[in-house]
């Protein structure tokens, strides 16, 4: 600040800094011992210019003045810390079932998986933005049905759901072979899952 600020300018600056609410010209003039509003206005204009390139701006809203963070730095006020986590086995399975069968209700997902699905699993998929509720099935109880989102296609690099390999392709790739128990153990099944296969099979 090469140029020395005037006394009034400094006083206005400090007063607005310490103020708990924005202040109008009259209020400032009164607070500073009954100054002429014109002088205060002049100081405000000077200050406004001084702060124009700074990280803080002096702004007027509805005749009242206050300091605020420069708009281009607003992101500094609310920082997001991202924590990347890999989707759990259970969540991946539920996601896969929704992707292949959508729209499906929770009961249908459970029936396909053969195990109960904890409430948190669907929440995680919705938090990730890959799954969304898609209305209700018009059957008794009107259960919520779920479907994948455009973000799901994005994240997994799919143009459409039709790009998902079909059952025959899965079989050809050996992905339908019974899972070796040792392998299954190595993949670390979630502890709350007990593999109790169910004969009912909606996928077929």
């Amino acid at each position, binding site marked *: 600040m090469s140029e020395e600020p005037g006394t009034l300018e400094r006083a206005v600056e400090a007063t607005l800094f*310490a103020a708990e609410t924005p202040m109008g010209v009259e209020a400032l003039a009164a607070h500073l011992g009954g100054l002429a509003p014109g002088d205060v206005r002049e100081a405000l204009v000077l200050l406004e210019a001084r702060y124009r390139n700074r990280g803080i701006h002096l702004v007027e809203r509805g005749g009242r003045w206050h300091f605020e963070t420069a708009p281009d730095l607003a992101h500094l006020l609310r920082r997001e810390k991202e924590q990347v986590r890999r989707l759990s086995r259970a969540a991946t399975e539920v996601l896969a079932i929704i992707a292949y069968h959508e729209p499906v209700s929770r009961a249908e997902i459970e029936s396909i998986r053969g195990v109960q699905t904890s409430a948190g699993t669907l929440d995680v998929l919705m938090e990730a933005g890959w799954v969304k509720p898609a209305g209700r099935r018009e059957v008794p109880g009107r259960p919520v049905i779920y479907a994948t989102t455009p973000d799901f296609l994005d994240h997994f690099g799919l143009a459409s759901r039709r790009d998902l390999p079909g059952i025959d392709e899965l079989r050809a790739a050996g992905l339908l072979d019974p899972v070796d128990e040792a392998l299954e153990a190595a993949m670390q099944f979630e502890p709350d899952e007990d593999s109790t296969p169910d004969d009912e099979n909606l996928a077929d």
Partner: protein
Amino acid sequence: MNATDQPFMFAPDAGRQDADALYLELDGWEGPLDLLLDLARRQKVDLRQISILALVDQYLNYIERAGALKLELAADYLVMAAWLAYLKSAMLLPKAEQEDPSPEELALRLQLRLQRLGAMREAAGRLMGRDRIGRDVFLRGAPEGLRTDRKTVWRSDLFSVIQAYGQVKARTAPRIYHVANRPVMTLDSALERVSSMLGVTLEWMEIRDFLPPHASPALKRSALASSFVAALELTKRGRAEIEQDGAFAPLRIRRLKDAAA
């Protein structure tokens, strides 16, 4: 007056002209040491040069005149007065009769304590006189505040999804169980075979001798197990006996003499 060379001589009546001002209740002091410090300050000299003897007199004089003291509050002050009276008399005695610690040492100790308290009282004053937040300087009245939101970003990949689906399908697919047709020797045929072979001789026979000689290893294992059970069964019926010298030693069987074949 400079009392440096004669620290224990009587000082002029430094306190006396202010005696009326001093004539307050003791609530105004933070204890006897505080009152002493106040009195010492009235000598208007550096604390290192105060006359202890004069100070003692001022203190005793003050206590004497502050007649209407609250007794419980006064106790500390009276204890101090008694001690100071002792100190004064010791200081006035000839050096030779002085005890240990010497009155000079006691006086010096009192002086040092007053200096330290004085220093802290002054420091407190200077501290309180600094530009204090909320009184002289002010923080921003309405800071926007900084916030850090923690957000979980989930990661997965297409292969995991497809693989997971494959595993769900594989896990829940209807299963057909095939039981392989394995070569076995049933217990019945083993019984028949062992009892007919036992009928031939009364000698001990090793159990391996009962096994079909050209059988496959799998059938041999089954035959061994069945033959053993058959031998046990025959023994139970009283038609044979079994002996073995030790664990894993050859197992031998022979027909009992009086048993009918």
